[in-house]
């Protein structure tokens, strides 16, 4: 029994000290308040959340962002995967090219799209102008109405390929047998899709939805570069607000409290997904 313990110990040590201990540290400071009398324990940080407009707005923004981006990425990715589920020449090159957006550093994605969306010299407005469309009011990231749309679009650009590739792999893992049986049984294309393809694709779908949801809920990098949460606070998601609280206002206790809400949220949602996944596998 000694050998396996020896092998696992270093990894456990690293994870405990750098993943678990910070959480404990965080709980501690979230429950503390600095008063003139020193440091006391209180729930004040958590109580503040309910009345903090910035927090509530940030949560709303996060949900809107997540649901909108997830829906677009999923539908586009699934559609593409279904259409392209055949042997394609140059598949390796094609796959590598599609991977580029999601492998870019998020900072670079931010830079790329800031350039594209620049109202004056960006490629988007430049091309629209050439098509005769008036772009005066299309200030994308600087416009309160369009900013959220822009950041969502950027995320869709970056991650639809991922959804596409995972679902494609899932589709191709489905054996030919059930399809042939369905054909013989006289099933129509839609029926085959509903009763054969979809159920067998469920594990891949759930995994991809789970991973994307987790990533979307905690989004930070791209929005930071694109809009810094602006204009004003129009695109501030929860991670950005936590960052602002901790590193602009240095209110670490409050930031820690918010982190916990975020952690609880992501844990609950992932638990729900995993419950679905396991239910599928049991069948």
């Amino acid at each position, binding site marked *: 029994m000694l050998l396996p313990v020896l092998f696992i110990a270093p990894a456990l040590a*690293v994870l405990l000290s750098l993943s678990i201990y910070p959480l404990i540290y965080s709980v501690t400071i979230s429950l503390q308040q600095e008063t003139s009398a020193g440091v006391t324990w209180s729930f004040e940080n958590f109580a503040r959340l309910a009345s903090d407009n910035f927090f509530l707005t940030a949560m709303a923004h996060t949900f809107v962002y997540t649901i909108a981006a997830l829906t677009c990425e999923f539908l586009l990715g699934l559609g593409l995967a279904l*259409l392209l589920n055949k042997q394609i020449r140059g598949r390796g090159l*094609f796959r590598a090219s599609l*991977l580029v957006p999601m492998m870019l550093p998020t*900072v670079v994605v931010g830079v790329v799209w800031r350039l594209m969306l620049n109202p004056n010299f960006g*490629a988007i407005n430049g091309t629209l*102008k050439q098509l005769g469309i008036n772009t005066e009011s299309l200030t994308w990231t600087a416009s309160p109405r369009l900013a959220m749309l822009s950041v969502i679009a950027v995320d869709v650009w970056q991650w639809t390929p991922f959804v596409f590739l995972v679902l494609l792999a899932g589709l191709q893992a489905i054996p030919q047998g059930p399809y042939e049986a369905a054909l013989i049984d006289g099933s129509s294309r839609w029926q085959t899709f509903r009763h054969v393809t979809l159920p067998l694709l469920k594990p891949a779908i759930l995994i991809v939805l789970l991973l994307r949801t987790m990533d979307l809920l905690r989004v930070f*990098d791209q929005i930071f570069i694109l809009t810094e949460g602006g204009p004003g606070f129009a695109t501030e998601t929860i991670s950005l607000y936590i960052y602002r609280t901790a590193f602009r206002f240095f209110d670490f206790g409050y930031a820690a409290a918010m982190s916990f809400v975020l952690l609880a949220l992501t844990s609950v949602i992932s638990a729900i997904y995993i419950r679905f996944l396991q239910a599928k596998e049991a069948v």
Partner: protein
Amino acid sequence: MNHKDTKSTKSDKQGSLSVLRVFVVNNFRYALLLPALLFALAPVYWMLTISLKTEVDQFASPPPWFVFTPTLEHYYDAFVTRAFGQYLITSAIVAVTSTGCALIIGTMAAYALARFQLPWSLNRRLSLWILSTRMFPAIVTAVPLFLMMRDVRLLNTRASLIIVYTAFNLPFVIWMMRGFFADLPRDLEEAALVDGDSRLGALVRVVLPLVAPGLAATAMFCLIISWNEFLFALVLTQTDAAMTLPVGIAGRVTQYEIKWGVMSAAASVAIVPILVFALVLQKYLVRGLSMGAVKG
């Protein structure tokens, strides 16, 4: 005789119709693919052109997509005049070191989880726990880590990033390598033991050579993840001496006057390793990114 003739022409017509349909359908896929490809790559291409255009061309309207005089002034500006060269080196050192550490520690743990039966169904529990640490929103640990690093005076050092990135990459390494070890038949190690090799010797001479491709793929993933990482670097390093490339690029963005040329030059260099790896790794990528749930 006549009757037969009409019958054959009818089937000929149907034949050519279906050939046409097949042609359209097949090429319709390519017709969809090409724009998708362009859409994915065009923005990156745009950024590359910005890095190579003079300032005049950059602000030209309508923007020139292909015809312009290229210049390397921004690259010179970024990497020689300014500190981007240093940021690049920092990124490289941090990525390589943390990947190396994560690989060593993680592969050992992965081997133990794949081969040894631990009591209290620890194998499954540990694996799930390790997976869950991967799911944490970065900001949740970033705030306390900042405070912890501040307490031990490791802020603004490369060491702090190496430590954090190792912890960051560890769950991924364990998850990937465990899969690769599990795919290897036990027979081979048992044969090595019966042949007289020690457990360690069997690991080195038989197991490692066979998981080498998986190890390489995992290493490349970790390098990419470390190279791209932004939030922890932003929080932990604010000085020129310790900043990584992504932080350096972002710094330019939040400034007063945005030097687009410099920024895109730095960003273009930042993506070079990515493009190289993407080509090499594209076979493993789906498996890696979906945490092994789907084998691409």
